[in-house]
């Protein structure tokens, strides 16, 4: 095995991780296979379905289209890192449960990342803005309806929390 390895240092869900990785290792394979953070899913490996979405420095990206090496020096958040500091579900995660915004759950981590990315920058999105924000994430189960409902619900709950 003569593949050359490159050192990387990435903050993943608040924990500093160091590794030596081959140049061709994708970010999603590193997260899933090496760090065993299997919440992030692989759907198409060509950047269309969005199942592999993670946050890179707070913005949603496709981890199948990035090499692990490209994340060197950056901050990555996966679905496992979305929970509140005490380990309980985030408002968005809880709203997904309340609105039954999922069925098989496979696209869900990517949907949560995309929706959280929206809520981080736009706390009161319209239906159309929600649809646009998750427009790059394919779901085959829900027809998106209950996902839109869940994001609306989360936005409303979060704005009430902020107000109080």
């Amino acid at each position, binding site marked *: *095995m*003569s593949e050359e390895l490159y050192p990387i240092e990435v903050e993943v869900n608040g924990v500093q991780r160091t590794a030596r990785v*081959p140049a*061709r290792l994708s970010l999603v394979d590193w997260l*899933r*296979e090496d760090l*065993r*953070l*299997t*919440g*992030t*899913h692989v*759907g*198409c*490996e*060509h950047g*269309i*379905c969005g*199942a592999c979405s993670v946050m890179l420095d707070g913005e949603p990206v496709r981890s199948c289209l990035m090499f692990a090496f490209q994340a060197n020096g950056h901050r990555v958040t*996966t*679905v*496992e890192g*979305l*929970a509140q500091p005490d380990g309980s*579900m985030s408002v968005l*995660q*809880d709203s*997904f*449960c*309340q*609105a*039954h915004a*999922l*069925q*098989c*759950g*496979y*696209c*869900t*981590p990517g949907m*949560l990342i995309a929706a959280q990315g929206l809520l981080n920058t736009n706390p009161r999105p319209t*239906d159309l803005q*929600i*649809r*646009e924000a*998750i*427009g*790059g*994430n*394919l*779901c*085959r*189960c*829900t*027809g*998106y*309806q*209950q*996902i*839109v409902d869940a994001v609306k619900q989360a936005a409303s709950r979060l704005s009430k929390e902020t107000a109080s």
Partner: protein
Amino acid sequence: MTTQFRYIGKHRRTKEDPRFVTGRGRYAADIALPGTKHVALVASPHPSARIVSISTDAALAAPGVLTVLTGDEFCARTDPLYVGVDAPKVTRYALARGVVRYAGEWVAAVVADTRALAEDAAELVEVEYESLPFVIDPEAALAPGTHLIHPDHGTNVLYRRKFVWGPVEEAFAKADHQLAFRATWGRSSTVPIETFGVTARWDPVAELLDVWASIQMPKYPDQTARALRLPGNAVRVHFDVDVGGSYGVKRGIKHTVLVGYLAKKLGVPVRLIEDRLENMRGGDMHGPDRFFDMQVAFDRDGTIRGMKMRAVDDVGAYAGRSPLQLGKPVGAICGPYQIHAIEYEPTSVMTNKTPQEAVRGFGQSPTNFAIERAMDRVARQLGMDRIELRRKNLIRRDQFPYLIPSGSSYDSGDYHTVLDKALEASGYPALVRMRDEARLAGRLAGIGVATCLEPSGGNASFELLFNPKNETTTWMDSCLVRVDLSGSITGVMGTSSSGQGHETLVSTVVGEILERDPATIRVIHADSLNALPSNSPVGSRMAIMLGGAAAGAARKIRDALVAIAAHNFECSPEDLEYRDGNVGIKGAPSKMLSWDQLVEIAHRKFHKMPPGLDPGLQAQFVWEVPTGGGVPTQDGRVQMYPCYAFEAHVVYVEIDPDTGKPSIRKYVCGHDCGVMISPDIVHGMTYGGIAHGIGASLYEKFAYTEDGQLASGTFMDYLIPSSMEVPDIHIVDHCTPSPLTTFGQKGSGEAGYLGAPAAIANAINDALDPLGASIDTLPMSHLALWETITKATKM
């Protein structure tokens, strides 16, 4: 209707959602056994060719490679996969031997330390091919003298029969009018976001093959064992693997036999996870690819007298269960209408394309599309309102149970009311005004209506109908309910789930019967050696079958608790009242044994147990499909599925004439699936089914080039609707309980998908109508619509 229930029909959080939103699902690709090796596949670039030679030397010498397996060894040491119809010469293995029959067919499997190394080595496998003639078009495949996909079979036809139910020729002779047209359903599929994946491990001491797979398939453990020439109890399938979507297609039996063989041969765990191209090209999961030659006989008042339907389905290069997808529609061949004379000629034909697999509705959605296009065409020819035509022919509420010409009895329904409710919710008169104003403004606008059935409950009657040698007449399911010493309840089911929420279903039903909070009930997926008989979640059957089985098992527990109380109170069970798990004497509140006390007796106090009752507290219930067990008559009449849900779709569409881009501006679906056990789950599946139907009707196609190559093997050319294509959908519920099921429930796993393509096709045609144009081929892509519009406006 649902007020009589405590938990059924209520909004409640599902049991499954929390693990999925926290990233704690456990899918096939998450299974990581120590020492696992990885498979990469070598696929045929030819649609039809002879394999002259395979050189594996370079691949075997590559870093990390354990073995390279080809068809010669594999086919000699395993048995071929199951074929649904009587076609024993259409043999199918995971790896090609001698010839390849479609582009993408697997020729060799490379096993290496990592997936990347296996893929590197797969590129080093040298295969020399000699091209052979091929056929892509199903009509060409039917023509005499055509290249035979399986020469030993002697024909490209896998199945053909002409059924005549009722006085068809008389109906056509006596009718005022007739029409004929062809409707074509494009090759698409369910295409879950998770591809198929499987890991297998062989224990040589126990002689046991453990399998973890993203599977939704009846008889999967049995078929795996049979193909590997192992006893059935040497294969243990772990059904606690979460399946990332299936909707019918996750039947990776060939993958499993291959990986099982490799695991046994190499003595290490072996895993195969399809990449997207493998999934779409060699994963053998394409759906129906079907055209219908339709003839309808009808009177000037709109009465449909008879229908002739010739359906030709292109199943690709191998059979599997796919020809049976022409069989299920027999159970709803007249749709929701009173049509007394029907001729049906299903033909299943092979071509050099990727094989077909079961897709949501098992062939019913294409059939509904053809029937609903016929209804609209009849209305148009008569100058009659499409809704009035449907109202005239719909089976009336007072006619149930209603026996259709092909032998199935519809259980219950109120089709007129559901249609009315959907129309009302759509604001139909305003919708018509909106359409007419859009047209006046020069836009292409149309309204589509479709009324159709969702047969549910799953039954294997089509197996025997299409293959007299296959005497499958039961399609049972089961559940075990256990109450432990602490009084906690566990439900055990024997299949995996792919998003249907079965843990929620079982806990809701058991909670309902035992009057215990479903949130406290745990539901587990037993492995195949621990499980009771199941036929997996196919055919919209789990609400009926698993729900019925769970209720049956829970009732046994309840009866046991009452019997224990009766014994201790020395009274008759009739004198007792069961409430919240406690059992007391009617009218004497102080005379009561609590749940905890009863459980304690059952587990520990044999001296307080009534004679004849087993200690411990568990019960199992195996349920046969209601109305099942029938054998077809000589002329092919048989009771197919037990329950029939109904849906009425109303859609408003506008098409951009310059680009052909359609946009759905309004979508209403009236839906009656009887009593909904979990409304949130039913609604979710209906939304998803409609979205899938939007894909099948407007976007999704496994297109083939003239030289036999799949042209849509990625999500950049196989277009799955996103949140921007799927509109806001309004579902209107109605409830006509089924008289055949435990709570009045019907199935709903295929809801929405069964009517959406028909309704959208009707809306598109309504929009094209002012141009004098029409289109009856799915998918109605932007390009196809643009071409239709351009042609019509130039004329």
